[in-house]
């Protein structure tokens, strides 16, 4: 029942980025990701962001897919903004000065709000991060408004231009990086990605790393994830028939029950691995020996264009950094 599961993020579509050779995509996108660290100013990063947006628009992938991968980093982004904006020191005068007062009433209200937030888990499952951000905003707002009851402590926060600029830079950098890497994983099938990586990493042979074996390992691992999930479901059912029930029981029993799932899982996985190894050897697989490929990677005209675009972009970034410190 899990046979149709596809791992990785690959989104099927038919755009020019999808059709590029995986090696091209890996090398060019990696090169372009480097520029995120080359640009030192916000304007350079904004320019890069525009390029990413154009690429995304032409990739025929819904923007929601990119937002999904950004969502995972949302927490990190929020914290970065928070610390950069509120705690970085600048040279000139602060742009905004805020004074907060902690009083008994406001402390009580904030604690109450936090309690409500955790209690609300049952009813609001979606958009909790937004809710938390709103809550933090309300908490700070309360500290400026409430002037009654006795004062506990007061503090001031100064927001400087430097803090705002650094946080903008950090955010743009992270967003750019994530968009580029998502562009790679969303437009390339895991198997293609693996083939591409194998080919790109071939020069590592010089330092005695056998890339083809590594690539084979990765592709087998990808292939076996759904199979092993199926096996895990079967084991779960077999043990459920013997009364394994995670909903009840003491912690000691629960540990035993987890063991009852893990050991058969290992046994089955090893057995599968052995069978596979035998089947591969029976079909003439020799680790490390040169093998021909069923789908040879092939560069087309678009690949050359993509390469040139990528390198011009990288070169331009280096030039701008050196000549104009952008």
């Amino acid at each position: 029942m899990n046979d149709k599961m596809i791992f990785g993020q690959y989104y099927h579509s038919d755009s020019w980025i999808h059709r590029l050779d995986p090696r091209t995509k890996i090398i060019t996108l990696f090169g372009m990701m480097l520029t995120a660290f080359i640009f030192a100013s916000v304007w350079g990063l904004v320019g890069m962001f525009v390029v990413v947006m154009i690429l995304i628009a032409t990739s025929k992938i819904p923007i929601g897919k990119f937002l999904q991968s950004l969502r995972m980093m949302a927490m990190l982004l929020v914290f970065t903004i928070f610390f950069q904006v509120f705690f970085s020191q600048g040279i000139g005068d602060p742009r905004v000065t805020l004074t907060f007062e902690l009083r008994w009433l406001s402390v009580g209200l904030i604690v109450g709000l936090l309690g409500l937030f955790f209690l609300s888990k049952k009813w609001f499952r979606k958009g909790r991060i937004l809710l938390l951000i709103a809550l933090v905003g309300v908490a700070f707002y309360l500290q400026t408004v409430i002037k009654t009851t006795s004062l506990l402590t007061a503090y001031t926060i100064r927001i400087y231009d430097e803090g705002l600029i650094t946080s903008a830079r950090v955010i743009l950098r992270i967003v750019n990086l994530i968009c580029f890497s998502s562009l790679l994983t969303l437009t390339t099938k895991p198997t293609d990605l693996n083939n591409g990586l194998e080919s790109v990493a071939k020069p590592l042979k010089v330092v005695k790393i056998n890339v083809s074996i590594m690539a084979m390992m990765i592709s087998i691992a990808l292939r076996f994830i759904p199979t092993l999930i199926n096996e895990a479901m079967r084991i779960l059912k077999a043990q459920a028939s013997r009364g394994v029930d995670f909903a009840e029981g003491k912690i000691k029993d629960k540990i035993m029950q987890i063991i009852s799932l893990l050991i058969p899982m290992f046994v089955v996985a090893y057995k599968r691995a052995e069978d596979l190894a035998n089947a591969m050897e029976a079909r003439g697989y020799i680790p490390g020996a040169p093998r021909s490929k069923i789908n040879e990677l092939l560069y087309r005209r678009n690949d050359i264009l993509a390469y040139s675009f990528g390198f011009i972009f990288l070169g331009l970034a280096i030039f701008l950094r050196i000549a104009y410190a952008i």
Partner: protein
Amino acid sequence: MGIHLQKVSFAYHIPKKRKSIIHFNLQDISIDIASQDEFIALVGHTGSGKSTLVQLFNALLLATRGSVQVGEYHLTKNPKFALKPIRKQVGLVFQFPEYQIFEETVEKDIMFGPKNFGLKHPDLIAKETAEIMNITPLLSKSPFNLSGGQMRKVAIAGILASNPDILVLDEPTSGLDPFAKNELLLFLKEQHEVYHKTIIIITHDMEVVSRFAHRVLVLKEGQLMYDGSKDNLFKNQEIIESCNLDYPETVRMMKYLKEMLHLPLDIYQYHLEDVFRELKAKVGDDHE
């Protein structure tokens, strides 16, 4: 008591969109199975839904539509009660023993089920079950060093130890040599006859059906095609052919003899002795 299925349909995937068509893996199945004295064979082609059906029996899967009653429990889509007691009543042995065996010794592995169901003296139960199954010498061994047949016995013992009323076995004889297969089936027959347990076997082997089962359920593409005695099944040529079933060897042999010798033989004999008796009665001693 027992298992009662009423117009049960089951689908693994329920599409999110309201109006899209649901592909049912089981459709409109109604069965009544008593908790005592039944020996049922469940047959059908690969992918006909046999394994899915038996998982409905002990609430490993819950019906998409229709009602399932096991013992005093009415199973709905979201049961509000614990499912453990149901699994104690209906013991399900899966096809591959390696999916459930995990302990250091056979004894501990057999004890696992009774412990989970909170039975008293699991060690005594394990010894008793081992004795019934004739695997006492294995008790202190590691279950991973056993032969296929022994492993399967340990797996069955692991379920039997919880003393279920109904014992369901998914292809218990596949991969066993003829001797081990016969031994296992005779053991199941004994469980059925002496302890009055209801035994349900999923099988492809028509010999198993003809020699042991009283009642046969035939599934085809998720639908129950036949529910009744084995005699009527073998007489019903249409179902045998449409469901890709085979006649047991004894019946095939008698059929052949009947055609060749033009004798009024009763071809529905399931044991070699009966075949011999029937031949003797119809053919007479002089042709021996």
